[in-house]
């Protein structure tokens, strides 16, 4: 394989990962504040449909992206209001919305299936795209791919390096304590749930306007939401590691297509399953590492212990538990 081919191949990994990066970073923000938004899979589809329909009708890509993001934010707001203010189970509401949003997308998208609409053209970054190899890899894509890369570092900085980020993390760990210190915990949770939802919506729009242009049943984005949820855990709720997980998955997917020839009997859908055993394995390792001093851990082979260190991370302590100020 020549160097150019390799760059193109890896470039397609970076491009293909963009919506997964957006969705999983969005979900990371939401979960950091203590809320699980389980509606990702449906949200992505519905926002993909809305983004495509809006930009098809108005011939304006920007409106399409805005519409997609708005849908994601709206669904997240429903999850937030039902769970934070009405005391319903976050999982229940998110799950119902996943199924309903998916059906809404198919229902309203039906007349727009298989139409040719506007799509975001690649926009190579001036000068930078001429850098050999790296230019092909990172700087020859459409704008949303750059946005996805920017979001990783922006949210890492925001969560880990700013007072506001510290406040979200405090709310996610211990909403009572944050409340006592003067933070309106419920409002903060709602705000970051919606913020995460906007990114999820943008992920959907990135599918229908860049990565898999157009609308249909199936669109091709199905299942991404669940994968993003798994990747958030795999990445230990840390934006950069989460993004790394997204790239790893995209890499596996591209390789799966490349190596289809080697195992013709294995359909490519089987590769889609890979993140889930990895997610379970990560969770078990994290749990084992937390039990720290126990014998099982000290007896474990050293590579496993090192892996546990790399993958270490803890879920926000109040994740999924609604907070009621008394």
């Amino acid at each position, binding site marked *: 394989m020549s160097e150019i081919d390799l760059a193109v191949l890896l470039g397609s990994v970076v491009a293909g990962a963009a919506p997964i990066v957006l969705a999983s970073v969005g979900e990371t923000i939401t979960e950091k504040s203590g809320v699980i938004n389980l509606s990702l899979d449906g949200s992505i589809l519905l926002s993909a449909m809305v983004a495509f329909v809006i930009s098809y009708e108005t011939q304006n890509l920007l409106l399409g992206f805005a519409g997609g993001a708005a849908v994601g934010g709206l669904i997240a707001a429903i999850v937030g209001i039902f769970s934070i203010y009405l005391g319903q189970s976050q999982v229940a509401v998110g799950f119902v919305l996943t199924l309903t949003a*998916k059906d809404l997308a198919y229902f309203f998208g039906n007349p727009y299936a298989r139409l040719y609409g506007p799509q975001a053209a690649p926009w190579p970054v001036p000068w930078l795209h001429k850098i050999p190899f790296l230019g092909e890899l990172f700087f020859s894509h459409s704008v949303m791919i750059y946005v996805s890369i920017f979001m990783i570092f922006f949210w890492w900085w925001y969560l880990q390096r700013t007072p506001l980020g510290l406040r979200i993390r405090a709310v996610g760990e211990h909403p009572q304590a944050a409340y006592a210190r003067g933070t309106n915990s419920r409002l903060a949770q709602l705000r970051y749930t919606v913020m995460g939802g906007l990114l999820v919506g943008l992920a959907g729009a990135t599918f229908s306007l860049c990565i898999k242009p157009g609308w249909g049943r199936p669109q091709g984005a199905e299942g991404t939401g669940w994968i993003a949820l798994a990747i958030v855990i795999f990445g230990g709720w840390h934006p950069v590691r989460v993004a790394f997980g997204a790239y790893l998955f995209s890499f596996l997917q591209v390789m799966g297509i490349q190596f289809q020839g080697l195992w013709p009997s294995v359909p490519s859908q089987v590769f889609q399953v890979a993140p889930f055993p990895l997610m379970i394995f990560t969770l078990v390792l994290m749990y084992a590492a937390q039990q720290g001093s126990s014998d099982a851990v000290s007896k474990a082979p050293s590579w496993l212990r090192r892996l546990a260190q790399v993958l270490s991370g803890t879920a926000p302590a109040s994740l999924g538990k609604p907070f009621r100020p008394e």
Partner: protein
Amino acid sequence: MEWVAGKKENMKRTLLEIGVILGGVFAITTLILVVAGAPPMQAFYHLIAGSIGSWLKVAQVLMGWIPLCLCACGLVYSFRIGLWNIGVEGQVVAGAVAATFVLRLGVEAGSPGVMLVLAFFGGLLGGSLWAIIAGFLKIKGGVNEIFGGLGMNFVAQGITLWLIFGPWKRPGVASMSGTELFPTNLWLPSIASLRLSPTGLGLTIAVLLVTAWVLSRTRLGLALKGIGNNPRAAYLHGLKPNRYIIIAMGLAGGCAGLAGTFQVTGVYHRLIPAISSNYGYLALLVVMLANYRIGIAPAIAFFFVCLNVGGIQLPMMLQLDSSLSGIIQGICVLTALLVYSWRRKRTITEE
């Protein structure tokens, strides 16, 4: 006398709530249809006529009601102990795979009746095993049952695809249409004129009755409820929550496995990629709408399958996507959640 009056008051309240839910769902659905530019009344007509318009349609609904009800029974066990068994979908698939495995042996073994019974046992075990893995991941590995279950769903789906395209592929061609059809003597017997399986119906009713009995009349039911309501207190009373988590998951998975077996032996007569028909996920909605109790779950399940079966008419008659049924089901649950939270708020203020 006060008690009777209270009961009457409760009854009135429940009826009012059901009225509010149905009214809300009707209003929102109409709105959605108007926005989509479709004639609402015609759409409702086709949904109803397409599901209970003839005995043949009713039989078709019942054939969907069977697996949906079985899954719902299973979920009531796991919800009772406070577990969100989202893995039910994978448990249906695992049951279907196990049943297919048994029936494939049966093609040569002869005595189809015995093989069918064995297939149901196989499905029961397969579903149970899949759920128990998720249970062990929870109690030994610290993996929340939602993420564990979700992961196991996708793994089950992957295994099914691999089997259909690999070891169990049809001679010559492997395709998404599934494995080869079983010989007809390995099909679950059905009433030919209606294509309805009395065995499946009987089994489901039996499982429903047993579930209701176990949960309300036995020590096991009480233990599950106790742990679900307050695991700490239950533990101090000498119950072992971990053991009961495994039991509840095993029962839940077993019911789901039966549903998967029914899909294989009674409906598709082969293993297909979409063998679960999403009944596991749909059953979660059914049980949520039934407020996590078995009581009215069968009725809700019947209503939901009516929507599914009636929805098949929509593309042909009105050029609408059949996913309208799913939208109505989702709105039902969302409206119900709103009403339940409103009820809870009211009881809290009354106290």
